């Protein structure tokens, strides 16, 4: 008896149901092969055993529970749709709020420099015929003291009139209309002095304002204070030149 025959016969036994008894090949083989006969008997017993499992039944309230669940789902369906609509509305509101916020921020950033109140208000404007003064530091000790006295209020002003203004005239020119009212650089002689120009032409003369510049400072409480800035001299130019080095030097330094 070949092992392959036994394998094929057992496979046939596995696949067939009631036809086993009538299948001559299987019956002929199991009569001569005790192992396959044993396998067939076990197979029949196993199938009987498994088939003997008593079917269980659904509980009596199965239909009731199923109906209740289906009815519950039917009732809750519109609610789910409502929730979906609410969530959609919420998303739309969020998007709209973000858009409004973005527009607001952009608008605020555009209006911010214009709406910012200037710390120094120039009440006495420079006459067009007179050369403009940048309010550079003065050489005399008394004038410096006078400027320092108003320092807490005048503090933002040196941004335009300090040493930086000498270094970067383009920035000064661009910011001038916003901070200094009605100073026309095209008409007045520019007070910007470049150190490079001075190095190249040491003998060049600066055209400086001949009249004092009066600056009226309003601290916001209604009390105004007027500061007179005298004419810029060459001493001031030297102070400006030294100030470009990045650190402030005392005026008593010999140079």
């Amino acid at each position: 008896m070949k092992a392959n025959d036994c394998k094929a016969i057992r496979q046939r036994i596995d696949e067939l149901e009631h036809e086993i008894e009538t299948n001559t090949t299987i019956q002929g083989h199991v009569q001569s092969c005790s192992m396959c006969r044993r396998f067939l008997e076990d197979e029949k017993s196993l199938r009987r055993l498994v088939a003997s499992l008593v079917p269980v039944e659904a509980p009596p309230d199965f239909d009731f529970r199923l109906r209740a669940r289906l009815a519950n789902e039917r009732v809750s369906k519109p609610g789910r749709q409502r929730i979906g609509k609410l969530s959609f509305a919420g998303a739309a509101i969020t998007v709209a709020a973000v858009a409004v916020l973005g527009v607001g921020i952009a608008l605020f950033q555009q209006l911010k420099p214009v709406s910012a109140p200037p710390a120094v208000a120039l009440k006495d404007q420079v006459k067009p015929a007179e050369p403009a003064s940048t309010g550079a530091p003065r050489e005399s000790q008394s004038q410096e003291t006078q400027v320092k006295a108003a320092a807490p209020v005048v503090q933002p002003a040196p941004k335009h009139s300090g040493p930086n203004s000498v270094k970067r005239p383009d920035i000064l020119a661009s910011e001038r209309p916003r901070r200094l009212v009605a100073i026309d650089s095209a008409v007045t002689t520019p007070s910007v002095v470049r150190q490079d120009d001075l190095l190249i032409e040491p003998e060049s003369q600066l055209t400086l304002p001949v009249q004092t510049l009066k600056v009226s400072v309003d601290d916001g409480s209604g009390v105004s204070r007027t500061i007179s800035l005298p004419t810029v001299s060459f001493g001031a130019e030297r102070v400006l030149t030294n100030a470009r080095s990045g650190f402030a030097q005392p005026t008593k330094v010999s140079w």
Partner: protein
Amino acid sequence: MDTLTSIDQLPFSSPLGGELVDGSASDHALLEATRTGDEDAFAELVSRYRNQLVSYIYRMISDYDGAVDLTQETFVRVYRAADRYQQSHAFSTYIYRIATNLAISELRKRKRRRLVSLTGFFQSNDGSEPLEFNPPDERPLQDTELVEFERRAAVQRAIGTLPEKYRAPLILRDVEGRSYEEISQILGTSEGTVKSRISRARGFLREKVKAYL
């Protein structure tokens, strides 16, 4: 005002007047009527399949309450998808496929949960299927009914230890008596695979219930 005396009078109504619900209508016709709103047609489908499905799922997961819940879930899914049902296969194949998928999902869920079993101490040493806690009872048995009960319980426990890919085809074939073709449609596999798995399942089962053969 009328007084309702039965839950049957409550939620379901039959716009078709229950014409199809006479017990002779095919499953497809009943589902078609369900699709048009005939709740009695769906109730007839439920009555046809509820016991079969509870029994089948119970054999799969060895838990009666879980089987009832999954059977209910099966019917709910059929009801929800009534509009999308296509009559390419038999309705019984369709509903058994849903039930099988739910049962397999439940088995996988339970495996992930790693439920601590009181019989967990009796694991086999080779890490394969856990051994059943079945202490020998030397006392004489009371009657043959009790013997049969014990034998069936042992078979059910043995089926419960089979891997799920062997369990479903074995139950469908040897318990439910379905053809290989139906089983292959329910499980979505080829007939050859079904035959092979059933053969393997019987081999496993034969070893486990050897004492009862």
